């Protein structure tokens, strides 16, 4: 579907990306920032999956009774890998947030800035 010359799906992903970016830069709470980062990541993944699809195509699994059109398998492999990377970074960030809270007693950036 194309609207104002822009593919609606890509438009939606830009909106999702920016919602995540907004959460990352404007929210003071570290957990909220991290959620924002995850929303941004998912938006990029969605962009990848969508760029690899073909209208009316089957998943890239060539068993009997499928075809003749198949979705591109490379973006799927990239997104699978990307999901693992995303959860890895998130886990490390969360472990750091727990430490920050144990030390400073807050996870609000506005409050952390004033502390030594």
């Amino acid at each position, binding site marked *: 579907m194309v609207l104002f010359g822009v593919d609606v799906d890509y438009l939606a992903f830009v909106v999702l990306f920016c919602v995540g970016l907004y959460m*990352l830069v404007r929210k003071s709470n*570290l957990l909220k*920032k991290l959620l924002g*980062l995850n929303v*941004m*990541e998912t938006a*990029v993944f969605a*962009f*990848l999956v969508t*760029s690899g699809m073909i209208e009316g195509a089957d998943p890239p699994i060539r068993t009997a009774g499928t075809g003749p059109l198949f979705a*591109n398998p*490379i*973006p799927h492999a*990239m997104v699978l*890998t*990307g999901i693992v*990377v995303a959860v*890895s*970074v998130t886990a*490390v*960030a969360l472990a*750091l*947030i727990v*430490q*920050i809270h*144990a*030390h*400073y007693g807050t996870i609000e950036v506005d409050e*952390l800035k004033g502390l*030594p």
Partner: protein
Amino acid sequence: MTIAWSQTVPYLVVLPLAGAALVPIVARRDARAAGGFTFVVTLVTAALAIALTVRLVVEGPLTAHVGGWVAPYGIELRFDRLGAWTAPLAVFFVLVVPFAWRYLEGTVPRDRWAAFYALMLLNLGGLIGFSLTADLFNLFLAMEVVSLSSYALVAVAGRGTAAWAALKYLLLGSVSSLLVLFAVALLFALTGSLNLPDVAARLAAAEPSPAATLALASLAVAFAVKAALFPLHVWLPDAHAIAPSPVSAVLSGLVVKIGIVGLVRVMELAASSGIALDLFGELLMVLGAVAIVMGAFLAIFQDDIKLMLAYSTISNIGYIVLGLGLGAPFAVAGALVHVVNHALIKVTLFLAAGSIIHQTGLRTLTDLRGVGRTLPQTCAAMTLGAIAIVGLPPTAGFISKWYIGLGAFSAGRVAYGFALVFGALFVFIYYVRMLNAFYFRTPTREEVAAAVEPPWSMRGPVLFLAAACVIVGLLGGFLLAFIMPAVGDLLPAIRS
């Protein structure tokens, strides 16, 4: 069947990474054994890298097709003249790891040593993978290995302040990684390929599109964050100053260089796809010049020696970026040589500073007055490093900065030449300040008066590196001659 040298290139990446997976197993018996094991792994990696560099000189660039799939259908690793910087890279790790053996005692709890050594090896493997791969998505993954291990290494010494510095680093670093992933996705959507030369060829064949320019621009911004280029440097000082000193040496000397390697890749991509990045070269020059002056200026006001060295890194990244942006052959060659030279000097300085901090427990210039009398060897190494980073002949810093300056004047960019001179002046001021405190003031703290030289496992690497600062300076011509053939491929990006 003879085994081709080129097909051993993947082992440069695999050896340290598989070694990292083994470190926790080795450490189960004795945490110290992990240190020895890590040292052996870095040693083997460095030996392979040096052997490959020799092959490179003899028979030209080596290309490995992982899994036997020829590009663009598989992942390609290229060991070329730019990729050869992985040899000094691995050698630095060979020196940093023994330094860490004794340094960790008393600074990092014993039950975290295994994690520390594993993270160091992961960092090394990621750095090598990032420098050698010719595949966009592989580049992203190697970058994530480097970044993730760097975030953890900053926090490894464990107080909450370190965690906060690490998290700031992580948040900015993740945005930068996400930009890279987005750019990779865009380039893939445009060309259907991930292999760098193939992507460039297909972009060149297609009609010029804003999407391709956007992809290159977001790659450039992302790598500028990783390189801590001036307005995007905010994460660097805290993270590099708070980390344990061996980690600071690695982060400040080596990890920021992935940003530079990334920028070089963007330049290659732009050059061979014919996408004119009109503002790109100008922007690099302006930001580089500002970074030189601002980094050096901010360093003057630091009392904490590690914070001072961290700001000096921002300034030196400015030199490299300015050199790349100038686009004159001398300047680009100087910049590429400075990547290695700055790594050498900064590792020397951070390890020497780490020795001083480790032996005295103090880290500000005010507290460290007179330390030159009680730690003469370590401070001599620090002095050599300082002379090298100011760029006085005959040290390693001289030749690269000289060529960047020469490039600026030969390109008619006199203003940038003066930025360089100003930067050097500030750098001179803050190192004179340091040397003054070390040698010409009387100790005010009894820790300084009672300090003794560190054990040989720490002193050895520091003295060796300090000597290397001079030797590399004397042999600087060889480095330039080695890198010159690679410069030609980069130039059209800026000239166009």
